[in-house]
């Protein structure tokens, strides 16, 4: 049994320690917002937060996640209102939507670490996330908007 903390809830899962965290989250815990896209850390559809870092859950063994704080897209905010989520909705970023759980999880880490990202900062932080529909220009725009929303939400930091 492996003990996992996902979105502040503790789960005890019976899984092969080598099983990627992605499949534990999706198929055992049942949180399907985190997506499978490539299985080899190329596309970013599976990005989750582990102790605050953006990690590719498709190549993270579940044993490595034991005892760590995992946050998935379902736990990014309580009401779909993280600044990045609000910005994504405002700009109608997604098309098919499949990659955007991972896009948002990468964007959330960027926005936390860099409250005023430039286009170049965004490109560097988001270059690991593929969007086959090609919504990249909107992703960039939405991250700038999210930075603005974030400032309004936390005036002390601005």
């Amino acid at each position, binding site marked *: 049994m492996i003990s996992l903390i996902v979105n502040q809830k503790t789960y005890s899962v019976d899984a092969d320690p080598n099983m990627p965290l992605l499949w534990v989250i999706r198929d055992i815990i049942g949180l399907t917002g985190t997506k499978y*896209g490539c299985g080899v850390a190329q596309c970013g559809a599976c990005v989750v937060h582990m102790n605050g870092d953006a990690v590719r859950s498709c190549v993270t063994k579940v044993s490595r996640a034991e005892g760590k704080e995992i946050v998935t897209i379902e736990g990014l905010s309580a009401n779909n209102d993280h600044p990045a989520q609000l910005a994504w909705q405002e700009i109608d970023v997604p098309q098919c939507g499949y990659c955007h759980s991972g896009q948002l999880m990468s964007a959330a880490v960027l926005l936390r670490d860099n409250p005023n990202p430039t286009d170049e900062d965004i490109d560097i932080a988001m270059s690991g996330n593929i969007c086959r529909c090609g919504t990249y*220009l909107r992703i960039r725009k939405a991250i700038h908007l999210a930075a603005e929303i974030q400032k309004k939400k936390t005036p002390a930091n601005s």
Partner: protein
Amino acid sequence: MQQLSRRKFIRNVGGTGIALWMGISVRGNVIISSSVAASGNFTPFILVESDGAITIFNTKPEMGQGTFQSIPAIIAEEFEVSLDQVTIKNTNGEKPFGNRQRAGGSSSIRTNYTDLRKVGASAKEVFIQSAAAKWQVDISSCYAENGKVIHRPTNRTYGYGDLVADASRLELPKEPKLKDPKDFKIIGKMARRPDVPLKTNGSAQFGIDVQVPGMLYATVARSPVIGGTLKSFDAAEAMKIPGVVKVVEVERIMGRYHSVGVAVIANSYWTAMKARKALKIEWDNKGYGDFNTVAYEKHLHELAQEEGLIDKNIGSVDSLKLPPENIVEAFYETPMVAHHTLEPMNCVAQVRGDQVEIWTSTQVPSTITGNGDNDVHKYIGFQPDNIKLHSTFIGGGLGRRLNVDYVIEAVGIAKQVSQPVKVLWSREDTTELGPYRPMTFSKLQGGFSAAGELVSFQHKVISPSFQEAMNPAFDINKVDGTMVEGIGEQAYEIPNLKTSYVRAEFHVPVAAWRSVTSSTLAFCHEGFMDELAYKAKKDPMDFRLGLLSRPSDLKRVLLKMKEFSKWDEPLPKNRGRGVAQWEFFAGLCVHVVEITVRPDHSIKVDKVFAVIDLGEVVNPDNVKNQVEGAIVMALGAAVKPGITLKDGKCMQHNFYDNPLIRIQEVPEIEVLILAEGGKVKGVGEPGLPAFAPALANAIFAATGTRIRKMPFDLKQV
């Protein structure tokens, strides 16, 4: 598309269908069907319940193109309800919703726009009639707004729900009065898409996300040599892995392509994948073990010498005697490419006796349920009435999910166990096994008169055939119209035009890829147009306009683009711009691309202008999103490696060796939508074909290097 007469429709659908069609109340509800819509198009429906709840059914699966909003929006506009008031439900291939529950060919709006309006308008009229009768007032004194009928002189109101019983007894008017477009509240306005919030918190359900109690997982080992099939297998080691339930044979069927693989069924996908590696399999390569695309492409070059099958022959191309110095010839090449929908193929199936239940992401729900002009249900192996489908949001369609090979295969596995099974393709599976967009090669010739006018144009396409691949009964002595898509129908006025097709035998599964063959032919055709402009010593924009003396959509759009892109403003020395257009079944879009040549001679794509001609537009912001995405996809196909085969196997495996465009590679994009009435044109595909030739033409303008082969490397042109 097969056209059904109304009579035939009644006969086909039987009792339930008649009830729906007549608008008869079902359990206190009224279901308004599109009896006014064109025959063969009994698709969109409104459901009004007596408590006032309104549901609009969307028959066009949502794959990112926006139909989850745009289809209901058109109905809601005329029905006088706001989108906030209605529940939108995707249909699942059910019989009463007809045989066009499918999304492809950029057709959802362009082929249904007026019919959908009539659906909403006719429904509105019966509610107004019902209210007027209840009040015993004249119909003309009543109007509808926000799901209510209002009696103008007294301000009395009835909600639609209050009128359900009465409205359900009325016959729907066949030619309802449509709104004046200037009164539109929804159509043509920017509105946020209702599926977006579901896509920002992980709650949108894609096929891969379906979970059914007791569900098992399966992965399939398929012949790595494309065209090969199973000879024998030994599952002894695989069965020793804890969690493995069963190992079975299963057939993949796609058109004429049949191949047997080995499915591992286990209690998790991870376990199934582990066990798949432990299988010992002998494959029968069926003679395809030596196949390689280098030799095949050489063969295509040779085939270019053949006369081929004539598609169009206007004027007298063959008898023109033009001096050799007035003739320009070129040969263009394009690669195979993979669809790479980010959601890999997957399907959940459960078989119970003679019934099957299917959960999947598909572009073709009514094909899967056998409710269309196809025989897919025969391959699935169940009577149409016994196939129950749950159609989910689609994590990318791009044409890949017009095919149901992965569904047939999943049902084939589910038949062999009693539990429901989720079959998932790995990224490697989706990359290595096709279907692919086929390569097309083009032989082009243009001829000028002594006066310097373009008088002759020939375009010969050499390629595998889609229709032959899809349909074993296709007559290969006929031109596969899909493979010469658009090339004989451009608006240019050239007195002598000949288009032709040389079919090349190909055993690899091929399929439509966003904008189908226009995705390659536009590159060849419009690149060559630029060569002709150069030969004529004319500006590429003016050269094209010079071939358009008569009014046409293309002429109008090109002129608009000339202004929009500031075409006539000179660019600095190290920069260049190119133009290309493409008009085909899906629509019309013109691109201008601006590039910079860096000091190291690599190319930077600076900016793309796109003018898309639509006739009518439902959600302009969504159209822009679609065109931006089409440009990104076109850029990827133009500059990233395609799919190649060696020793019968695909040489690419995943995104590390078959890369897609990433955020830092995307140019600035400016989209202009023309919605000036006239023919309604499509959105999803037209933004793609003209991008690559516009880019290649821009590179020529800046460097003098003519690019005749995709993909090309922007680092070293």
